[in-house]
């Protein structure tokens, strides 16, 4: 039940874009074409899940027993950078086709605040190992869902007749605001059943 609650919460209710504001730079950056969203989304889900899986033992087995809690920020960002680099090299060796699809998106993930954000949120929420991994996965799926929907909206908006000053980014922000309002509708979802 807790796992289901984390999944629904991460994907819909506390969506990483529309309610937590994490990972916005790539959200606006890659959402102008649907194909790029698939590549970036797959990379985000993959790295957020792995980052949750690797930062939890780092914090609980290394930093906390040694009393090095204050090194959390430094340690997390370094291990995420190393993780992204390793994943990139492994994928390049194992599956060149996957690398061709994800390659250019992977290096960007080091500075994606959703990845470091989910690691920090897992710690402040006090999740266990399994819950942390599920939370990372749900966060990635939520990010991808929001960006996919938004890319569809943006493609429609491109061709419309609007004032020149609103074209491009300004209308994209307004569209994102409307989608955030729509996502507010998920707030009461499963209340009393899961939460």
């Amino acid at each position: 039940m807790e796992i289901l609650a984390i999944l629904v919460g991460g994907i819909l209710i506390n969506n990483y874009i529309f309610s937590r504001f994490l990972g916005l730079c790539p959200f606006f950056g890659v959402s102008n074409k649907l194909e790029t969203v698939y590549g970036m989304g797959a990379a985000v889900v993959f790295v957020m899940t792995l980052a949750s899986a690797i930062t939890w033992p780092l914090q609980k087995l290394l930093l906390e027993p040694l009393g090095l809690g204050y090194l959390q920020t430094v340690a997390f960002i370094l291990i995420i950078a190393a993780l992204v680099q390793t994943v990139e090299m492994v994928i390049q060796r194992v599956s060149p086709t996957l690398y061709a699809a994800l390659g250019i998106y992977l290096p960007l993930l080091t500075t994606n605040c959703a990845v470091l954000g989910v690691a920090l949120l897992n710690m402040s929420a006090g999740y266990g190992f399994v819950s942390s991994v599920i939370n990372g996965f749900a966060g990635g799926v939520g990010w991808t869902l929001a960006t996919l929907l938004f890319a569809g909206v943006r493609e429609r908006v491109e061709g419309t007749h609007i004032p020149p000053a609103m074209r491009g980014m300004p209308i994209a922000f307004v569209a994102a605001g409307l989608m955030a309002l729509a996502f507010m509708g998920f707030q009461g979802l499963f209340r009393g059943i899961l939460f």
Partner: protein
Amino acid sequence: MKQSTSTPGFGAVLADGLRQAPPFRLLLGLCPSLAVTTAMENGFWMGLAVIFVLACSELLISLLRKVIPDRVRIPVYIVIVATFVTVVDMTMKAFVPDMHAILGIFIPLIVVNCIILGRAEAFASKNSPLLSVADAVGVGVGFTVSLMAIGGVRELLGTGNLKLFGFALLGGGLPVEAVVMLLPAGAFFVIGFMMAGLALLEQRQRERALRAQAAVAGAAAAAAVAGGSAAGSAAGGSSGGEGETV
């Protein structure tokens, strides 16, 4: 940063940094700009933290720019930035715990704020320490002012008043309470319309410049007709070229 090739002064670099207004012009540092700007004061503290981290890391990176090997420079920058972020995090937790609780994970997330790594790579790694600090203060103050503007609009429309350090700036306040402005959606709306406003201003300026240029070109052409046909064609060609680049 085209001026950095010559020898620009402290003030010139500072003004150049200020003019970039990161969230609007560069689309960098979006996450904190949207997340913490439910009130003007939040924007101020967030901006202050960013200025400190940016200035300290640019100074240190600039001092070490000849020592850091080129191949590992990005990890080194990340460690330097993360160190100063930890300093800010712990300082704010100790002295302004309420604000630390409001800003939450967006303080440690300054590490992955693209503005900081971007300025480290684009400016501090190539310039002297003094100029790097000027750039950091310029960009940081620009960021702070942008955050306070976004926060101010959201607070004014959402609660009907502006508060800074506990004082209500507008006395009784206004009879508006659009709660949507304090919700996540309001952040997107405010930034969207502010960007549209900036675009409109720029468009006006460009049109005015074009009109002024056309007038100058017309006068030059008239003078050239009086002077000779060869000079006239040169003037026409140059004004046409400028019109295209603008």
